[in-house]
C-alpha cells in the first residue's frame, strides 16, 4: 500500500516547483493587464492585497481612451509596425540572397567577404551607436524635398541600417550549406538562371530558416530602444518604445502607463503564443549552430 501511494504522489508533486516558477513569470504581466483596466487611484491602493491581480472594483477601458488622448498612440503603433515590417522583409530578402551567393556561387573574394561580415557578429549596436549617429547625420537622401543631407528624424534612418545583419546572413548560410548540391546542378542543366534557382528552387525549401530569421529580426526591431531614442526627436517618426516618454509628466498616471504598456505588448504576446513553437525553435537554433 505504501508503495502504491509513493509511486503516485511524486509525479504529482513534481508539478509543484514548475507551478511556483510559472507564477513568478506570469504575475508581473498579469498585474500589468489587470492594472490597465483600473483607475489610477484604485490601482495604487489595490497593490496592498491580492486585488492587484484581479479584475475587481471599477473596471473600464478609460485608461486606454486617456492614453490615446494624451499621445498620438495610433501614430506610434503605425510607425513601429511599418518600420518593423519593412526591415524584416528587406533583411530576409537581402540576407537570403547574399547567403545564396556565398554558398552556391563561385566568385573572387567570396570567402574573405563572408568572413569579414560574420566577424561583425561581435559588434553590438551599443558600441557603434555614437559614431553611427554622426555618420547618418551626413548621409544624402533623395526624397520628396529633392536632395537633402542628414537622415535624422526619418523612417529610413530606422530601417536601412538594419536591413541586413550578420546574424541573418549566418543563419541562411548555415541552412543552405546543408541543402543537397544536386538540386542546384539539376536546375543548371535544365538551363535555369541563378535568380530562378534562388526563388524557385532554394527559397521554397527555406521555410524554417526564414521563420527563424524573421522572428529574431521582428523581436529585435520592434523592441529597439537606444537607436530610435537617438535619431527621432520629431514625434512624427517615433516608434512605440520612445512614445512612452509622453506618459512621464510630473504626475505619472500609472493607469494610462499600464494601458499603453498592455497595448504595445499584448499583440506581441499573442503572436508569440500562437507561434510559440517557431519562436522557441528560432532561439534554440541560434544555440545549436552558434
Amino acid at each position, binding site marked *: 500500500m505504501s508503495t502504491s501511494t509513493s509511486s503516485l504522489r511524486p*509525479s504529482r508533486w513534481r*508539478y509543484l516547483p514548475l507551478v511556483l516558477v510559472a507564477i513568478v513569470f506570469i504575475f508581473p504581466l498579469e498585474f500589468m493587464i489587470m492594472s490597465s483596466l483600473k483607475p489610477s487611484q484604485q490601482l495604487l491602493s489595490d497593490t496592498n*492585497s491580492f486585488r492587484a491581480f484581479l479584475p475587481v472594483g471599477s473596471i473600464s477601458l478609460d485608461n486606454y481612451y486617456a492614453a490615446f488622448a494624451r499621445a498620438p498612440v495610433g501614430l506610434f503603433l503605425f510607425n513601429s509596425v511599418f518600420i518593423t515590417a519593412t526591415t524584416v522583409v528587406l533583411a530576409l530578402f*537581402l540576407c537570403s540572397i547574399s547567403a545564396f551567393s556565398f554558398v552556391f556561387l563561385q566568385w573572387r573574394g567570396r570567402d574573405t567577404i563572408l568572413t569579414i561580415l560574420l566577424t561583425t557578429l561581435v*559588434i553590438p549596436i551599443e558600441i557603434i551607436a555614437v559614431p553611427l549617429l554622426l555618420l547618418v547625420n551626413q548621409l544624402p537622401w533623395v526624397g520628396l524635398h529633392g536632395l537633402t543631407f542628414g537622415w535624422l528624424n526619418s523612417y529610413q534612418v530606422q530601417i536601412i541600417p538594419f536591413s541586413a545583419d550578420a546574424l541573418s*546572413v549566418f543563419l541562411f548560410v548555415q541552412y543552405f550549406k546543408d541543402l543537397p548540391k544536386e538540386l542546384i546542378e539539376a536546375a543548371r542543366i535544365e538551363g535555369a538562371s541563378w535568380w530562378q534557382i534562388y526563388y524557385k528552387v532554394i527559397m521554397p525549401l527555406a521555410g524554417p530558416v526564414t521563420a527563424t530569421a524573421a522572428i529574431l529580426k521582428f523581436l529585435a526591431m520592434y523592441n529597439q530602444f537606444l537607436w530610435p531614442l537617438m535619431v527621432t526627436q520629431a514625434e512624427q517618426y517615433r516608434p512605440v518604445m520612445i512614445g512612452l516618454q509622453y506618459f512621464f509628466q510630473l504626475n505619472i498616471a500609472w493607469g494610462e502607463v499600464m494601458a499603453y504598456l498592455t497595448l504595445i505588448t499584448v499583440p506581441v504576446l499573442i503572436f508569440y503564443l500562437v507561434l510559440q513553437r517557431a519562436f522557441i525553435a528560432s532561439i534554440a537554433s541560434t544555440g545549436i549552430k552558434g
Partner: protein
Amino acid sequence: MQISGSKKLQNSESTGWLMAFPATAIIGLFIIVPFLLGFYFAFTNQRFISPNPTEYVGTSNFHQLLDLGVLTLEPERDAATQEIKKDASGAAAYPTVRSLTRNNSEMPYYDGMREWFSWHSGDNIKVVVARDVVFMKAIVNTFLFVLITAPLQGGLALLLAMMINQKLPGINIFRTIYFMPVVVSIVVVSLLWRFIYSGDNGLLNAILGFFTFGTFKPVDWLGNSATALPSIIAMSIWQAVGFHMVIWLSGLQTIPVSLYEAADIEGATGWQKFRFVTWPGLRNTAILVLVVITMQAFTLFSQIAVMTQGGPVDATQTIVFQAVQHGYAKQDIATGSAISVILFIIVITISLIQRYLTREKLT
C-alpha cells in the same frame, strides 16, 4: 564541356557579386564603417555639430576618462613637537583633497581630479582620485552587473531547462510560460518593474509584507543606492533567463538517453548523473551561454535609462549609459566614441579569456 564550364563560372562571377552586394554594402556602411570611425573619433575632439575643424588630440580623451591617482593625506602636525593636532572631539585634521588637486603646480597630473574612495592607513589617509569619477563608477557597476548576472542567470537557466526537460504531460505549457518575458521589450519590463519596485505602493513591498506578516519594512528599491543595482539585476534575469533556458534545453536534448539508462543500471544518484553525464555533455552550450550573457550584460543600457538614469548617487551608472550621455546628450562624439572603444576592448578581452578558461575547466 570545357566551354560550358568556363561560361558557367563567368556567369556566376558577376551574378555572385550582384547578389551579395546589397547586404555586404549595408553591413559595411552601417556597422564596419562606424566601428572604424569610432576608433578614429576617439583620438579627436569631434563634436556632433561644431564650427571648428576636427583636430587630432592623441590619447587625451582616454586620459580624461581613465586617469587615476593615489594621494596620501598626512594629518596636520604641530610644527615643534610633531604631535598630530587633534580637534575637540579627538579627531585628527587632514588637508582637503581639493587643496592638492586644484592649481597645485607641484603635482600637475592630479590637477582637476576628484576623490573616488579612500581608506585609513596608519595615521594617514589614502585617497584614490580619478579624473572622471562617474565613469569609474560606471565601469565598476558594469563589471558587478556582469559578474553577478552571468553565473546567476546561466545557472538559473540551466535549472529551469532541467525542470522543463522532464517527461511530464503538459510540460510544454511551462516552457511557453518561462520563455514569455523574453518576447516582451526590456523597456516595457523596466517600466512595469519600476512600479513593482516602488517604495510607496510597490507590489514587491506588499508581497514581502504579506509573507512576513507585516514585519517587513518597505524599501524604496530603486531609490536606495544599496538596492538599486541588485534590483535591476534581478529584473534583468527575470526577463532574459528564458532565452538561455531554451539554449540549455537544446543542449540537454543532444545528450543520448542511453547514457542516462547506463547510469541508472550502474545505480548512479541524481547528482552523479548530472556531474558525469549531463554536465560533460553541455560543454559547448556552457561556453555559448556564458559568452552570450556576458556580451549582453556589458551593454546594459535600457534598464538604466528607464528606471534610474544612473542614480541614486551614480549607483547604477554603466559604461553604455555614459557613452550615450557623452555622445548623444552632450553631443561629444569624441568622448562617446572613446567610451565605446574602451567597452569594445573590454568585451573582446573578456570573451577571449572566458573561452580560454571555460575550455580549460571542462576538458
